[in-house]
């Protein structure tokens, strides 16, 4: 996974609470076999009018936000479905950082598997960033993960909290599976000691079983 340390980029504001993952990647795009290409369809129903014409009233299509790589969002971002297609889309579009007051659990977790930093700030700080983004065209933010700060060119500096183990995963771009497999002997030992739960009990041949 691509490590994350620092990032500076233009901010795009998405001024809606409870943005769910169905909005990020609608169902018709869940029939893919790969993790690629979801940036083009990110926020599909909001972003495109029928016939795939860009919807000029959706913020992602505003000329001033083209090339944005920091997504400024509202509370409970990423609620709903567990589809990892959502963070794949966010990343593929070009966002490296999301800044919001809160996230839904599964989406939050999925971000770390994809080298996206989901930073949390207070509602007041988020509101301030929305105002600054609105006021200044090309408004950008610098995110420093080692220092856990978000800052702009006008002296604003916000500190954000992140669980140290999560931070490490992003900084090092760790491959989770590889790390877990280093403890393979522990897994084998667990399976030996917990035979009741780690064994499948096949009472009948399921082929002939009518529920």
């Amino acid at each position: 996974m691509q490590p994350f340390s620092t990032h500076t980029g233009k901010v795009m504001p998405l001024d809606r609470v409870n943005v769910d993952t169905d909005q990020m990647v609608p169902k018709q795009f869940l029939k893919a076999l790969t993790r690629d290409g979801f940036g083009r369809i990110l926020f599909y129903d909001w972003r495109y009018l029928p016939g795939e014409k860009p919807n000029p009233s959706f913020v992602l299509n505003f000329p001033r936000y083209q090339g944005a790589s920091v997504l400024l969002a509202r509370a409970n971002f990423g609620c709903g479905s567990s589809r990892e297609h959502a963070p794949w889309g966010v990343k593929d579009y070009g966002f490296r950082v999301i800044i919001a007051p809160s996230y839904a659990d599964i989406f939050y977790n999925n971000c770390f598997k994809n080298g996206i930093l989901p930073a949390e700030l207070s509602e007041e700080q988020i509101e301030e960033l929305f105002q600054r983004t609105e006021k200044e065209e090309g408004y950008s933010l610098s995110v420093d993960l080692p220092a856990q700060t978000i800052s702009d060119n006008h002296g604003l500096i916000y500190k954000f909290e992140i669980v140290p183990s999560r931070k490490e995963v992003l900084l090092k771009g760790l491959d989770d599976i590889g790390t877990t497999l280093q403890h393979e002997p522990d897994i084998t030992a667990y399976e030996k000691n917990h035979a009741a739960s780690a064994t499948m009990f096949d009472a009948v041949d399921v082929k002939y079983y009518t529920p």
Partner: protein
Amino acid sequence: MPPENPPKTLYQKIWDAHVVRETPAQPAILYIDRHLVHEGTSPQAFAGLRAEGRTVRRPDLTFAVMDHSVPTTDRTLPIIDQDAKLQFEALEKNCRESGVRLFDMHSKQQGIVHIIGPELGITQPGQTLVCGDSHTSTHGAFGTLAFGIGTSEVEHVLATQCLVQSRSKTLHILVHGKRPRGITAKDLILAIIGKIGISGGTGHVAEYGGEAIRSLSMDGRMTVCNMSIEGGARAGMVAPDETTFAYLEGRAFVPRGKSFQEAVQRWKLLKTDDGAKFDMTVELQAEQIAPQVTWGTNPGMVTGVTDRVPDPGSFRDLNDQKATERALHYMGLKAGTPIVDIPVDRVFIGSCTNSRIDDLRAAAHLVAGKHVARSIKQALIVPGSRGIKAQAEKEGLDKIFRDAGFEWRDAGCSMCIGMNADVLPPHERSASTSNRNFEGRQGRDSRTHLVSPVMAAAAAIAGHFVDVRSLDVSTIE
């Protein structure tokens, strides 16, 4: 004297029993007892394994099923949707190569992943169970720690049979009192979500209790746990009891005879100890809950059937006001409209929330001898599994539904997510027993109202929402 063991919640007990490795300030490596897989969120995980030269560690603990995109019409016909077809083929190939048992769309046991897990007895109390699907919380009804994961984690479980996890906080949700007539499990969970909000349970694992929960059948408990995620809680659980054991006995993957009795003795220990502390507690009174209907674009935008569509101005928070305004615009609703005056175009009874035999019986009972209103364009019954379908047909429910003007379909996720041909057209309004009323969920620009099976059935007959409590029906459980 050794110190007494501190009292534990059910969640803590299951967690502790599954820790493979835990070091301070680090997430634990947690063992996963059962892994369920479907065609939608697994191809990239298998591809990832292959790319790294890894294999499935425990194919015997992994089960796959086709559900999200399967047609609910005649399956002997060729699959028209080429993308879906490729996904089915990929799942078949992945299962064949890795030795994972697959219930394909022609299998007698096929159904929605969260329906067949319990139905086949794959799901058992005290287990950890995961699936690349947020409604995995359903399985918590058995006192199972079950939660949805992303595709990267699916790959992780395939490779290691473990997950890297941090402990969640605990949330106790108590529904006291006796469920009034016409108030179903769906109404309880919608009322809970209405109270705590769709992010109220974020960071928590919920445990449900109280008389109104305990008196539910397993089908009802699954409905409640299913929608835990709609309240933000990744998992929701009900401690197992005699109802649970009676449901499980004799199912395909459940131990039999003496082994079953031994398992029951173990399962009886799976309850929260007296004095165990929850991080948060929420309490409701069942007597105060009316049949619920959502009016907006998330499951927390819900109210009683006797209420009206709310005014955005009635919300204190500015973000809530804006969200409500937007939701009413999307839904094509005016503030102040009585819920019972909202007309419905289509009715969908199905999904992992409400497609079990109890749901179908209740809905059939209500529509027996009546007919779907002329204004209704389509009324779909989609059993959650082929097992349920067969049982319903044995009881003659299919005939009741057909005679009443409903379509009787094959099992799958269907119009809950609209990945197959069962899509709600733009600007049409559904009474749906599913779990999400998000914008575009059932089809682009479609308008979803979440309700219980009896409320959906009643709306089909009347052509608009009605208070089922006013109907002269003896059992509207």
